[in-house]
């Protein structure tokens, strides 16, 4: 076995277990099955080619997710999504104080479907941060590497994403409890 083949074995060992997570994340980013398939395949091709530049001992998961996100952002859907980012809300370094009122239970009590619908409607920069934190259970440091933003920005986006999600679900609940025509 030569050194290159050894590194391919290492690549398989590191990259293949991430396949399901990468696909799930790609679907949430693209909103489209075919596009997500192309994206995931392209990510594996890029990661395989660029594996020699990956620094052993650093965070491989963050490295691959960063490739996925960057690849997505240069796609047509990604470029379009970036244009719709609410810029005035971007990069606020201060972290909002989040008093956990019973209102936050709105999210926990939402059905899986209503939460999914709300996540779909979240602007890209909030959707990705909340998925990386809650679904992929990544640390702020990893998210900061993937999004290429400071940790403070990760925290403020996360806080805002949670707030928007809560408001969406609260609005949904109010709409459902209000009789039609009133």
């Amino acid at each position, binding site marked *: 076995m030569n050194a290159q083949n050894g590194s391919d074995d290492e690549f398989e060992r590191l990259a293949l277990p991430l396949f*399901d997570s990468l696909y799930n994340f790609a679907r949430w980013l693209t909103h489209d099955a075919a596009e997500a398939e192309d994206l995931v395949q392209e990510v594996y091709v890029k990661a395989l080619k660029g594996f020699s530049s990956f620094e052993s001992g650093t965070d491989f998961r963050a490295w691959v997710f960063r490739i996925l996100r960057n690849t997505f952002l240069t796609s047509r859907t990604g470029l379009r999504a970036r244009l719709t980012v609410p810029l005035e809300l971007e990069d606020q370094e201060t972290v909002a104080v*989040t008093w956990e009122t019973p209102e936050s239970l709105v999210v926990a009590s939402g059905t899986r479907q209503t939460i*999914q619908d709300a996540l779909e409607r979240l602007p890209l920069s909030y959707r990705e941060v909340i998925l990386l934190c*809650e679904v992929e259970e990544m640390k702020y440091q990893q998210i900061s590497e993937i999004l290429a933003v400071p940790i403070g920005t990760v925290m403020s986006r*996360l806080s805002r994403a949670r707030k928007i999600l809560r408001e969406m679900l609260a609005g949904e609940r109010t709409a459902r409890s209000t009789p039609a025509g009133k």
Partner: protein
Amino acid sequence: MMNCAECQKRIAAYVDAELPPAEMEAVRSHAQTCAGCASSALASLERKLAIRRAGLRYSAPPELRARVFGLCRAKAEVIDRKPVMRSARAWLPQWSIAVAASMLVAAGLFVVANLRQQQRQSLGEFVDLHVATLASANPVEVLSSDRHTVKPWFQGRIPFTFDLPELQGSPFTLVGGRATYFHQEPGAHLVFAYQRHLISTFIFRDTSQLGLPAPPAATREASFNLRSWTQGGLRYVVIGDANAGAIRQLSEQLQHAQ
């Protein structure tokens, strides 16, 4: 001692396990004596879990999995084989090819016989795995009769996904599952109950590393009935001491679920 305002400010980072150890402890201590902050922390945690459940939404199609996994494997194989082929051609004179061919036939017969022996051993090892697991104190790591609990449990634990059949109205129930390894390959081990018998189903990526006979295989090993087949790039092995008909019926239900 932390007060409520300080605690509330840290709750989001606390449930994300992102506070420094001393602050994690301070929030924990405060929440033990403050019902309001404790319920806030619980609400945050429930919100987190609800989003996680909702976010685990999409499963990759098997064709994409096969394509991506094949891509990674093909790269490794091409790199491994190329230099060998080049060097072999460089020194072999033309006349030696006929001699080599006849030697290959003889060697091939030996390899085939040897391979069959290895494949029988692999099937035997699955029987060992089945017996050893059922004899252990905790035969399953995820205990549930609900396929919607067992399948997601494997996410992140094995490098593929699979579908489980709807067992309502069938004589089988799903007891649970565990992650397992066979010849260094990670896989799923599911345990089904049939009357008073327990039946194991092993699912692995279909690689030559497993050393199993070409599917479909229905056989008996050490009085256990066993069926094995390949589907969607995955290798399934169903083993149990139930009768051959029950093993076949469960195998068919698993095949139809994919």
